[in-house]
């Protein structure tokens, strides 16, 4: 295939995937407000458009037009760069998520922007870089609350990334590949072939760690508003604030996508007779189910204390994930022999 076609194909797929992701981010904020409202016996946004459906667009416009304030005493360069460092890793991970069975497009193959053979590690590599944006943003603001929020987030992300890394090892042992497409294809054959049934413990530890990793309630230490005003982005406003916001929601969608691929069969249909539905619909359904779960626990649980969070990560989740690896490894060895 010619270089020109390859580049064109890549650009088209990137444009489509980014469009869908950013639209999902916008409507994730809407879904969150609506679902939380219904849980609290309210209606939520109703004014802009029918049932408030245009609310995310109004919010977006508002954020773009707001005044951009840089606090005095802030480190201007780092202050400007931090939101970007936060956002890029959240979006770049979608490059390796397979959203459909391979299909041919312009003489090339579609279905995923690029099928790296180390796809899973690639996502984690960039996810770990996202922490820089948070820590640097907190530091550059020259504010106590922001600095504390940034430091808390740093500690939290480092701890819970270990848990995420350990929980996926079981899946890797089963599928014998780091490529997300290979992992999805390994779960082919319907509902009962999903990794969820072979790796239930890993699924639970992964989901808990994913909530903590994306700084969501009940683990939203970095921005605990009752203690830290708004955490690391206290001093941010306008566009830069919007970037942090986008990054948080894009990260949520990314970890949910990843959970669907790793444990829920990705784009595979749950049963044979449903195969006529295109793969990306299944991936979207599974991802949105997990996103609903995110909102659900936000509406249900109170925030934990910071020391409880650390203790829970290091003394409960990591040992459980390690035992899970050991058991899976022994199991795979016995089955293979």
């Amino acid at each position, binding site marked *: 295939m010619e270089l020109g076609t390859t580049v064109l194909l890549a650009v088209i797929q990137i444009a489509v995937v980014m469009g869908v992701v950013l639209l999902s981010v916008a409507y994730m904020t809407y879904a969150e407000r609506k679902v939380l409202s219904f849980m609290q016996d309210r209606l939520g946004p109703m004014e802009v458009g029918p049932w408030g459906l245009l609310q995310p667009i109004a919010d977006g416009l508002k954020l773009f037009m707001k005044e951009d304030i840089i606090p005095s005493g802030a480190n201007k360069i780092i202050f400007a760069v931090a939101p970007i460092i936060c956002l890029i890793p959240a979006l770049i991970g979608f490059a390796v998520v397979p959203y459909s069975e391979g299909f041919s497009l312009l003489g090339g193959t579609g279905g995923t922007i690029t099928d790296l053979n180390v796809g899973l590690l690639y996502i984690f*590599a960039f996810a770990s*870089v996202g922490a*820089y944006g948070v820590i640097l943003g907190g530091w550059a603001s020259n504010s106590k609350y922001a*600095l504390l929020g940034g*430091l808390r987030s740093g500690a939290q992300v480092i701890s819970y990334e270990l848990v995420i890394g350990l929980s996926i090892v079981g899946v890797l042992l089963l599928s014998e590949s780091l490529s997300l497409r290979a992992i999805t294809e390994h779960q082919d054959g319907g509902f009962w072939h999903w990794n969820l049934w072979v790796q239930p413990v890993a699924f639970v530890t992964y989901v808990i760690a994913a909530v903590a990793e994306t700084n969501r309630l009940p683990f939203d230490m970095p921005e605990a508003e009752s203690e830290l005003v708004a955490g690391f982005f206290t001093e941010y406003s306008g566009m830069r604030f919007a970037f942090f916001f986008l990054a948080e929601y894009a990260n949520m969608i990314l970890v949910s996508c990843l959970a669907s691929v790793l444990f829920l069969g990705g784009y595979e249909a749950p049963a044979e007779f449903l195969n006529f539905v295109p793969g990306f619909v299944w991936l979207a359904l599974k991802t949105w189910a997990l996103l609903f779960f995110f909102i659900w626990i936000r509406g249900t649980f109170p925030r934990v204390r910071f020391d409880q969070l650390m203790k829970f990560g290091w003394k409960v989740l990591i040992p459980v994930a390690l035992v899970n690896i050991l058991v899976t490894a022994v199991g795979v060895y016995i089955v293979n022999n």
Partner: protein
Amino acid sequence: MMQAIFIYLATVCVVCAVLTVSLRQPVYNVMALLTMFFHVAGLYVLLNAEFLAVVQIIVYAGAILVLYLFVLMLLNLRSESRHLHRQWPFAVLILGSVAAMLVGAMQAGGFGLPTGEAPAQVIQAVGNTESIGLTLYTDYLLPFELASLVLLVAMIGAIVLTKKELIQDHGEEQS
């Protein structure tokens, strides 16, 4: 094309490495080092070692450097007014001679060395991660285990150092 990418990556690596030791603001040093890690990862990608590239980012950028940043923020360092150590002429002398030696060695050896047992095609046939795993856990098992032992010792040492007071308190209670 490859050559151009290599020259770009290598140049940024060197420039960032110099900036890492020469910038005055500690946070900028960390940022320069971060940029360098990414470009080193790029070099690995050029050499068809995707696994190493990704692990380079996870381990160095994602874990070690975040801890550096963490410590920097807790210490609240002022940017140093006189950042060159007074022994810098000696450092320049020694590093200059090492660099001259390296250049000399490269000139004498040339770049037309034979390729190793596992050129890119062989590795791609097995898979990047698989070939590293197989080599690491068969041919290099002993060094691997030794390295993990060293890390374990360091870990226990760190715990003992940080928990010194607790251990002493406990000892006094018993006596």
